[in-house]
């Protein structure tokens, strides 16, 4: 593909995070929501550096110089990322200082500096430091016998230059890691309902001498490092990378620092010292005009009494159809869609919970990727196993950042007698599917739940996802086959309804797009609407370009990374790309094809990324019932109409607000209102 026609995924991701920052900047959002976006922006950024930048750094170290479809080799990418990320970082602190802080003050939340403290405050802080902070701090001096310590990823540290209190003593460096169990914000006793906050690092700074008795402290500053946390080579990078690294004599530098954050008033000495010790490029040092790592602001969101500067509360609603009925008899009668978080996640929990108790249920099979800490799903599964059901759980240990947590509850499941499978070698299991086998009368009936999102009751309140309940025999058989494959009982045999990645997904998508192209060629109406989170796969992008050129009208609603360039003359005239970043994280994946009037609707656990298409077990499944199709159509149309949170992507990869439509319309607000009305 022509390089010009493809946007590097990392740069596109940075554009996405910029849209998150835009929401923090957006004055139409209540203050607390803006703070939340700010905090999300920061944690997103950390993960990005951990994984994406880390992985690029691996490539550079291995001497891997292959270009991405946009024509950038890893070195070029790192450089471009750094320019953009520096920009965003400055913007973040500008916003924090000039807009957020003043707004917070208006709402009686004050961040204090040393100069603002009264004697009384100082006394309070002194006591707090001595009792709560001092005992758990461990200073670490660096000299010829004590090397620079291995600092933990994403921790906040104090860098101190000091010397012994003797006339000709030499200057040396010491570092103090700030334990993350201590709250970043120290709340001083409130006065007249005004919150007064002093930052933890400032408190430590104030008392730094206590840690180094007999020394003279020359300077003290906070700093923070982000490490390469990508301990497994990301599968999305080609296998030849792996070979490259194996062949390369150079060892990968595990956990190498990829980003250094310091305050912008830190002295030059500290930076040059740290860049040397951490072996980090000057380009990767970020000078922040404010406290490092603003994600602590999330704690403000949870302060009591600020409802007026938050979005009105929304509690997911229980779908009418399930009320007071046995969930299996409901699903037996018809397929049901659940659109979270508008629809409550409870029916999914009930589904498993009822199955655990139901004497007719023989077996429960489920894939689990990321579940919440104290998951009711896990409890139900354990309960089911204890009730003598055959419980098979596929646990994906490779879920990034969740590995440890996953191992703990996987053991608990095993102890209870569940049959736990730990994923397939080389294939992450990303599909979300539950199968319940029930003996009704004397015959077997299968109930299936398929979803675009994880079995996580917490995220189901924050992410938009769609789940499908069905007792359709064909779905049931397919689900059995999928579990038999995942359990290693069988190779995959022909599936009838559910389309599985990596075996069949790409082909299926290609076929559906081809069909539209054929129809367009014949002069028939040809349209595609796809709502996903990321569009990266060059093959699919190329095909969409071709479809556009054949006259297929394509509307893409891509929340995050989009490597396709819309609206390029003679290439993608007929493609529109929109992104919605709202209160709920858009996560559902819906595919619609006009198909010469016989419209096809699909839901998917997969994004259009090469890894999802080729290296993950994913499910792509049709929605067949007329009523349910209507629901999906409404969602898709609402997304297209959204001119409140919707942004239109331009050919250069940047985004502008969607100003179409005379009336303001937000799909998320619309659906919340609609559900509330339905309840009344």
């Amino acid at each position, binding site marked *: 593909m022509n390089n010009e026609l493809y946007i590097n995924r990392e740069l596109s991701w940075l554009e996405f995070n910029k849209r998150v920052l835009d929401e923090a900047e957006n004055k139409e959002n209540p203050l607390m929501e803006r703070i939340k976006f700010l905090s999300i922006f920061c944690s997103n950024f950390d993960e990005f550096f951990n994984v994406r930048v880390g992985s690029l750094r691996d490539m550079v170290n291995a001497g891997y110089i292959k270009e991405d479809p946009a024509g950038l080799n890893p070195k070029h990418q790192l450089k471009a990322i750094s320019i953009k990320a520096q920009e965003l970082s400055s913007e973040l602190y500008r916003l924090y200082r000039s807009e957020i802080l003043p707004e917070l003050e208006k709402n009686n939340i004050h961040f204090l500096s040393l100069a603002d403290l009264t004697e009384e405050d100082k006394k309070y802080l002194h006591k707090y430091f001595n009792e709560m902070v001092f005992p758990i701090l461990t200073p670490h001096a660096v000299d010829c016998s004590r090397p620079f310590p291995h600092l933990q990823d994403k921790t906040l540290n104090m860098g101190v230059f000091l010397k012994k209190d003797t006339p000709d003593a030499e200057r040396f460096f010491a570092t103090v890691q700030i334990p993350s169990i201590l709250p970043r914000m120290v709340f001083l006793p409130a006065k007249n309902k005004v919150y007064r906050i002093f930052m933890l690092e400032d408190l430590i700074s104030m008392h730094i001498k206590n840690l180094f008795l007999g020394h003279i402290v020359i300077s003290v500053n906070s700093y923070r490092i982000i490490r390469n946390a990508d301990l497994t080579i990301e599968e999305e990078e080609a296998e030849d990378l792996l070979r490259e690294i194996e062949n390369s004599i150079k060892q990968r530098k595990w956990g190498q620092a990829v980003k250094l954050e310091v305050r912008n008033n830190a002295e030059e000495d500290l930076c040059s010292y740290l860049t040397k010790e951490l072996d980090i490029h000057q380009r990767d040092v970020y000078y922040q005009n404010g406290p490092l790592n603003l994600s602590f602001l999330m704690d403000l969101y949870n302060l009591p009494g600020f409802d007026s500067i938050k979005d009105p509360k929304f509690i997911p609603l229980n779908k009418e159809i399930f009320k007071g009925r046995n969930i299996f008899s409901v699903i037996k009668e018809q397929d049901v869609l659940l659109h979270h978080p508008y629809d409550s996640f409870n029916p999914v929990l009930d589904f498993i919970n009822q199955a655990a108790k139901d004497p007719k249920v*023989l077996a429960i099979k489920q894939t689990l990727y990321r579940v919440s800490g104290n998951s009711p799903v896990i409890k139900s599964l354990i309960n089911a196993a204890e009730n003598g059901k055959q419980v098979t759980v596929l646990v994906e240990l490779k879920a990034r950042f969740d590995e440890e947590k996953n191992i703990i509850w996987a053991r608990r499941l095993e102890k209870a007698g569940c049959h736990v499978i730990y994923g397939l070698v080389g294939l992450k299991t990303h599909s979300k599917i539950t199968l319940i086998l029930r003996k009704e009368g*004397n*015959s077997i009936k299968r109930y299936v739940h398929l979803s675009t999102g994880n079995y996580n009751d917490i995220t189901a309140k924050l992410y938009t996802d769609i789940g499908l309940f069905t007792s359709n025999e064909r779905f049931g*058989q397919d689900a059995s*086959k999928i579990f*038999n494959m995942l359990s290693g*009982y*069988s*190779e995959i*045999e022909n599936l009838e309804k559910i389309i599985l990645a990596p075996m069949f997904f790409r082909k299926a998508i290609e076929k559906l797009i081809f069909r539209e192209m054929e129809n367009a060629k014949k002069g028939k109406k040809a349209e595609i609407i796809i709502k996903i989170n990321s569009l990266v796969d060059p093959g699919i992008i190329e095909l969409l370009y071709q479809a556009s050129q054949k006259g297929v009208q394509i509307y893409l609603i891509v929340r995050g990374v989009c490597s396709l360039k819309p609206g390029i003359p003679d290439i993608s005239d007929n493609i529109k790309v929109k992104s919605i970043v709202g209160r709920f994280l858009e996560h559902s994946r819906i595919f619609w094809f006009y198909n010469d009037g016989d419209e096809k609707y699909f839901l998917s656990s997969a994004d259009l990324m090469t890894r999802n298409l080729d290296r993950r077990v994913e499910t792509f499944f049709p929605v067949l019932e007329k009523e349910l199709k209507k629901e999906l159509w409404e969602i898709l149309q609402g997304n297209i109409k959204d001119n409140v949170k919707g942004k239109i992507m331009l050919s250069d990869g940047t985004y502008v607000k969607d100003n179409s439509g005379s009336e303001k319309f937000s799909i998320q607000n619309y659906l919340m209102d609609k559900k509330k009305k339905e309840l009344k």
Partner: protein
Amino acid sequence: MNKKNNALFSVITIGSHSIKMIIAEASDEKDFKVIEKTNYPINLGRESFSKGVISVPMVLEICSILNKLKKLLTEYHISNYDVIATSAIREAKNRLFIIDKIMITTGLHVRILTNAEERYLTFKSIRKNYFLLEDFATTSSLFLDLGSGSISVSIYSKNKLTFSQNLNMGSLRLYEETSELEEQSTSYPLLLEEFTSSNIDRIIDFGPHKRILRFFIFGNNAHFVASICKPERIYPKLSYVSRDVFLEHYEKVKYMSTVEIMKKYHIDEEDIDLFFPSLIIVKGFLDLTISSGIYLTEVSLREGLMYSLLERKFNPEAQKADFDDILSSARHIAKRFKYDKEHSREVEKFSLDIFESIKDVHELGSREKLLLQLACILHDTGKFLSYEKHYKYSADIIQALDLVGISENDLKIVSACAKYHSHITPDDNSYLFDKMNENDKIISAKLIAIIRIADALDRSHKRKFENIEVEYTKKEFKITAYSSEDTTLEEWVFSKKATFFAEVFGVMPELIIKGLLNYE
């Protein structure tokens, strides 16, 4: 479907290149609904056919997969199931250890099927599906089961099985045996063609029917035909491709490289070795028929096993149709040995009369009855070789037969019946008896006792008795025979042969002759 009797059944087959499972729901023996099908590829045949043994790691893999499938059995609470193994394990020298290892690690008892049983079970599946075909009842059809280890050829003529033969030339075995050729020669397909046809030509000489109107193929490797020429589906489980279309593609493929073939026809690398051998075998047999094309059927051993499970559960009598197939093919074999058809009939009739009337005494079932009938049909085949000690030759012939649906042990029983039908009294260490288990010895003895007196009743091969009546009480066993001829010979022989019967059943049989013309 009658829900009350609904039950779940499962069949697990350990084949030469995969372990498969089927779980089905049924309420009678006629049909079933598949709930699950699994297929786990594992290349047992490769080891078994080339090295003669299956290696320990492979055995452990079998155990591990069986343990997994067992979980499915538990999941569905299935108690009606069968685990069977076919040629790969059957032919491994270490088969007994394999079976034992599986038993110890999984608790599953694996039954090794003989070729003949395999075919018999497949016929079950054929019968369920194709007897419905128009003109099946009036013409001849050849069924080719294209396995990896072995193939089998069966001919149905006017609804009856008339010929059935197993051949150790499955696709994988053919490949393993000729793979040296592949390395040495560039025209491997042509050589393989020659090699194959030289094997096939001789078989069909046995086949009684030259005009075979329909050619059916099925089995593990039949799909290769489908992959090169897309057959048209004409019935739910039947597709068809014309001879011309097949041959056109066949000729094209012969000159293509394996890489081209894999790409063009989406053949997996692990399957490509089976590709040519399979097509060449099909072509070889197609040439033997006058069929207008190839019928691809979806019958399978698994399905047959399932039907047999269902029959065991719902309707043991339903096996009769299968028995008819077995008997019919036995008669065709006997014909090859120029047997006295009328005498065999007579002996069979008398044997059955006796068998039925003393059911309470012998406590044998329909399967043993079938063995008795087979013995009656085949007991004199040895006369083809020599009149002297013909019973000995009969026994040898029966031992060498590839009798559909009959296990090796059963064949020994039939063989023993032939060997001892005349006058020698067997004991524990007699020929054949020395290789039987206790149970089979008892069965054999009972059947011998019956066939011996039945044979005596037609000693002269003249069918002197119109019919007989058998009357059994605890103390007496009376056979009343009606005849209008001089039956002195029969009476004399009967009295000599009755002793063994008495030894076995504890009652001395008594023959009462009633003349039809002269009153007594």
